[in-house]
């Protein structure tokens, strides 16, 4: 008897359509895995009833001949997406108990496509973090272990760490993620799965708890490239409620998937070769280059001269936007309210926000507040936005001589929980390869490419031109087929 939880989104969709199994069977299998994986702490809220209800509907639709694109597919929903009637917290104490009376555009699209919800996935608080250690609801643990025999708990990456851990552990076949500076790609790389951040504006931001508006982009995470294409098709699309939403038709990415890269040029950015970086990373990168050549692509060296400044620019722009986006959490209309004895309104704000935000969130709000404050605005924020223009220009010029860019997703494999918490800067450096594409709003994905010496997954990143998700997915597919990455974490939870 098949273990449904090993099936991909495409296999579940097609098998259900063909009548090989019922959607309820599938939902029950995943619900069971979710219930049995508390040790991973991947979910903040479990919603087995939601998954079952959607499955029953899917089975009914099959009999009625009214199947939807994703009928019978249960997924995980990052707890940054507002879900009508289901607690939505952004992994913060501030929003503990907050139950929206509205549904985010992206999650609504997935429900309309027939998906069921297994639960709300844990994440870094307000999506601020790279290891899922800033969640108010506790760390998410990666299912992976180093093969050194040691039992160190590893980070699933962040901020979409609940999503990556849950998919890698077969708690759901796919999940939503959001990516502001690598929050889809880095966790995917850390856990041996795939994830794509589409072009900024492809997925509506309406109903997603905002971190940094000019960078936030939703995207899917799944076990392979095809599933990412399928999910993205059902998440993307124009939304009049989001002024930055792209008014473009959603391509049939899945149908157009192709592993043939003949005539394509792949750019290798020389600035991404960092001295002193884990040699396993460079080895994987070179292997990736060989795979794309093998798929018929021509490889060219390119230069992205301002790469070095992407991370510092990001750590001005993102906190600045966050300091303003998070001002609405004030204890007046929803969420936490701390009202000390005889406290006035402003005291209530300060007490509520001191209690409701975790250390990393406070740190970023403080940085953002400082760089926007009188006398510093131009030196920090305006300068950062000018550098951002230069970074986007770098990509524009590079894409004159190539179709996609290949680079590592992260500078290292998953690290141990607690290893980097002491030093914020060391933590930030995790996103050194991911942030430039975010600043330029470009589509980028991570696909698993190899295991390092410790037996931990490593990911390759493909960055594409604006609107060319297809090119990114195709290059990802070419790597996926050649890398033959089949490793999975042994169940210990």
């Amino acid at each position, binding site marked *: 008897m098949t273990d449904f939880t090993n099936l991909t989104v495409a296999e579940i969709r097609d098998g259900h359509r063909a009548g090989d199994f019922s959607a309820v069977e599938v939902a029950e299998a995943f619900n069971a895995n979710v219930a049995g994986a508390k040790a991973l702490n991947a979910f903040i809220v479990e919603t087995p009833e939601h998954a079952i209800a959607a499955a029953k509907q899917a089975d009914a639709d099959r009999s009625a001949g009214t199947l939807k694109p994703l009928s019978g597919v249960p997924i995980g929903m990052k707890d940054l997406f507002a879900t009508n009637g289901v607690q*939505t917290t952004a992994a913060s104490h501030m929003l503990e108990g*907050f139950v929206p009376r509205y549904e985010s555009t992206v999650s609504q699209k997935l429900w309309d496509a027939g998906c069921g919800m297994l639960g709300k996935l844990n994440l870094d608080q307000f999506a601020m973090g790279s290891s899922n250690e800033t969640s108010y609801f506790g760390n998410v643990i990666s299912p992976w272990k180093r093969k050194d025999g040691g039992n160190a708990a590893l980070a699933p990456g962040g901020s979409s760490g609940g999503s990556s851990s849950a998919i890698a552990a077969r708690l759901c076949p796919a999940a939503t993620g959001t990516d502001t500076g690598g929050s889809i790609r880095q966790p995917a790389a850390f856990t041996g799965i795939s994830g794509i951040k589409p072009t900024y504006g492809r997925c509506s931001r309406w*109903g997603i708890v905002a971190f940094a508006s000019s960078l936030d982009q939703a995207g899917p995470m799944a076990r392979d490239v095809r599933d990412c294409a399928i999910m993205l098709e059902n998440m993307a699309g124009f939304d009049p409620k989001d002024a930055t939403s792209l008014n473009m038709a959603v391509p049939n990415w899945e149908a157009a998937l192709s592993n043939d890269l003949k005539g394509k040029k792949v750019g290798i950015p020389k600035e991404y070769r960092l001295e002193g970086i884990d040699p396993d990373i460079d080895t994987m990168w070179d292997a990736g280059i060989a795979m794309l050549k093998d798929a018929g692509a021509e490889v060219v060296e390119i230069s992205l001269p301002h790469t070095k400044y992407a991370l510092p620019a990001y750590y001005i722009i993102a906190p600045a936007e966050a300091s*303003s986006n998070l001002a609405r959490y004030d204890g007046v209309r929803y969420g936490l309210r701390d009202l000390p004895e005889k406290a006035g309104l402003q005291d209530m704000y300060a007490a509520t926000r001191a209690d409701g935000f975790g250390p990393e969130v406070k740190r970023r709000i403080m940085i953002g507040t400082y760089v*926007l*404050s009188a006398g510093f*605005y131009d030196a920090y924020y305006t300068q950062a936005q000018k550098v951002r223009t230069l970074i986007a220009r770098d990509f524009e010029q590079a894409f004159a001589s190539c179709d996609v860019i290949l680079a590592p997703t992260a500078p290292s494999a998953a690290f141990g929980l607690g290893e980097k918490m002491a030093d914020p800067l060391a933590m930030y450096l995790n996103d050194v390869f991911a942030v430039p594409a975010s600043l330029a709003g470009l589509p980028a994905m991570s696909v698993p490419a190899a295991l390092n010496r410790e037996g931990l997954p490593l990911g390759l990143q493909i960055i594409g031109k604006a609107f060319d998700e297809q090119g990114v997915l195709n290059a990802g597919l070419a790597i996926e087929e050649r890398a033959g990455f089949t490793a999975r974490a042994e169940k210990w939870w």
Partner: protein
Amino acid sequence: MSDYRIKGETGEWEVVIGLEVHAQVTSNAKLFSGAATAFGAEPNTQVSLVDAAMPGMLPVPNRECIRQAVRTGMAIEAEINKWSRFDRKNYFYADLPQGYQISQLYHPLVGEGSLTIEADEKAGLPEAKRIGIERIHVEQDAGKLMHDQHPTMSYVDLNRSGVALMEIVSRPDMRSPAEAGAYVRKLRSILRYVGSCDGNMEEGSMRADVNVSVRKPGDEFGTRTETKNVNSVRFVMAVIEGEAKRQVALIESGGSVVQETRLYDPDRNETRSMRSKEDAHDYRYFPDPDLLPLELDDAFLAECRESLPELPDAKRARYLAAGISAYNADVLTAEVESALWFDTLLETGAKPAAAANWVSSELFGALNRLGKSFADCPVTPAHAGELLGLVADGTISGTIAKQVFEKMLESGDAAGVIVERDGLKQTSDTGAIEAEIAKILTANADKVEQYKGGKEALFGFFVGQTMKAMQGKANPQVVNELLKKALG
């Protein structure tokens, strides 16, 4: 030049005034959400998830609000910026759900413009004066706090939150309460002509932030204070006078003015420092990352321009050219309703000067008496035109016209109908008039003697008697001629 001065112990002080007027844009829905803007709804019923700043909510601008602000800018001959942008003004307050107000600091929609206030001796305005307008930007209104509903709590109503405002920022060009009052009245008039704001100050559709400083004539500008949300012309003038005196007294007693936000208390007619805004000075403005730059195309601008009505200054000039007195032109153009009513009256062929006199005296008088306005005027321009026509062609006298008008107000009937029905036509029938004159002269033989003896002044007496005898319906010219003849 205004000669308004504050007399202090150390001599005379000049007042420098700049106004930031917040005018609510006339629109059905809010600036960034689809919630309604109607005044006086139940608390928090006109609030969308966006206005309540729920997590993940996003703003999408309302085209009509942008259009009205552009039309207003065109009405004050301002430059319209085809590329503008929204910025966030960050501060914490209970009436500000997002924790920031979406406004425009760095790239406002409307740039430099101006308006002209007319001379008005009685109001202390010796000559007309041009007041510079620095900018108009579009921004969100805040919610409303109620402090008197609960012993320990204030209540927040977000119905206003997110309603579109135009902030119209003047240059510090005004030098007296009278100039400031005239500026607000003129601005209000223009907004109402354009239709971009109803100008209803009682309902808060127009509020002024009053910036006041004092200086010895010729000196540099002094430190200014800003008194927030003053909601009537009278209060604006009162704030300026009071604040100027306070500042002079403060400086002359060795103190110095601090730049601060103040609040006006109409009951005690005084301003006081506003505690709630004390540390809100670092607003951390930055471009709103939820919104892209606002770019206007020529077609949009063309529609805005073509949809503008004739504005007060142009109308006034047209009236003056038509021989209407300056006083009447001012009275008629002040409010858009009276001006439009009068223009329709002119279309009936009424003589401009006579019609203007009649409207500004007879009609305005009647409306005041009946507590009515041009919006619910009991007389149509057509009927009024007919009445004036009957006077012009000699069918009725001016005196009779007053009676007819009264009857029109009561019955709503047309002038001609009333004149016919009540037989008010004036007669030029010499026979009838001569008959009456004959009677009067015989009845007043003594006066006839005196007249012939040189007491010419008595002529008026004979005219009066004759008119009386004819019940006012005799044609005055005819009466004069026949009397002259009869008295030799």
